[in-house]
């Protein structure tokens, strides 16, 4: 008995291309993406601080960019990314203590992360609008 020589590599069955997105995997990938966005946004914040240290003219340019609709959109997105990443991080800390692993708890805490992030984002913008004017 001689084994027939394999003529070609075995195909890999599809994974991400077919696996159904679920709250579990979607929140996990969002935690990654928001983490990357926040790292990028930290650089933007440094630019803002450098501009402020540089002088009134450069500061005015950066402030103008932030005040534009695209600047406001990015800032709003960054606020939401911040709260989503923060709440997701707290959820992970709780998991590290081996609590909240029942499927029901996983889904409740998952939706709670989404809802609380939205609420905190809106609250932050309402507060900044009413306090900062």
């Amino acid at each position, binding site marked *: 008995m001689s084994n027939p020589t*394999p*003529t*070609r*590599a*075995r*195909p*890999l*069955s*599809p*994974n*991400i*291309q*077919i*696996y*159904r*997105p*679920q*709250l*579990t*995997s979607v929140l*996990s*990938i969002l935690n990654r993406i928001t983490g990357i966005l926040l790292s990028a946004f930290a650089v933007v914040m440094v630019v803002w601080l450098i501009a402020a240290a540089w002088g009134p003219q450069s500061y005015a340019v950066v402030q103008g960019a932030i005040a534009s609709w695209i600047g406001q959109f990015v800032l709003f997105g960054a606020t939401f990314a911040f709260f989503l990443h923060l709440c997701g991080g707290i959820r*992970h800390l709780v*998991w*590290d*203590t*081996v609590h909240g*692993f*029942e*499927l*029901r708890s*996983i*889904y*409740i805490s998952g*939706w709670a992360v989404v809802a609380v992030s939205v609420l905190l984002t809106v609250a932050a913008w309402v507060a900044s609008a009413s306090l900062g004017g």
Partner: protein
Amino acid sequence: MPELRTTMIIESSAQVPRATLLKRFPVPRNFGVAPESRIGRGKTWLAPRVASRIRTFEIYRYDPDSGENPRLDAFEVDLDDCGPMVLDALIWIKNKVDSTLTFRRSCREGICGSCAMNIDGTNWLACTRFISDLATPATIYPLANLRIVKDLVPDLTHLFAQYAAIEPWLKTKTAEPERERLQSTEERSKIDGYYECILCFCCTSGCPSHWWNGDRFFGPAVLLQAWRWLTDSRDEAKMERLDNLEDPFRLYRCHTILNCTRTCPKGLNPGKAIAEIKKMVIERRS
């Protein structure tokens, strides 16, 4: 309102996903897919005779002897002539339409773990999923991210090698007792929820972390088994077992995504088992 709650809050892995915004992630069909794994368009197989209740199954096919790429065939199944489960539909197709359709099956009651496959986008046992719970058309792929031998039969060699790497047997150092090694009821209850694993690998195949790092990350099924031995009061090799696991890849590529717990056809909790291992690793340091 109760309707919305059961749609949004999943309480048991047996719950079929009802509402999803996206049936698949918004990535191209051939995203990161090697040329030999690309799936082509296959044949359509009509029901052999006129039938009033027909359900179409789109099934992944791969014939190693043809030299061709995998393809997606569509099969019409006569529901009035076929049993209620997905496995019944596969057997019906094999008997009445295309005898070359290849899949593993044995017990048809969810205890052997042979017929694990990707059904409508999530992993489950074909014998315990009702056809009536499927989408139209129903889609059937082999377990995700495995090398395919033929059609729905994946090569599990690597997964069982990973299982062997945790040395899944009782290890003792003390002298062999006169009779059995006894456990109290409480000690015995600690392996409840872990010893029931049937090694179908639905969880490992559904774990994105294992997709990207499966060569070195043990994956949920094997780590659940690792915990089953760590938490067994009769086992006396806890430290060696933890040494073997404490590794950036073997254990710590688990990022608590929890697709494993969502998909387990036995309702077990691999995600929790892995968290227990991580906690035990930390606790032995202090």
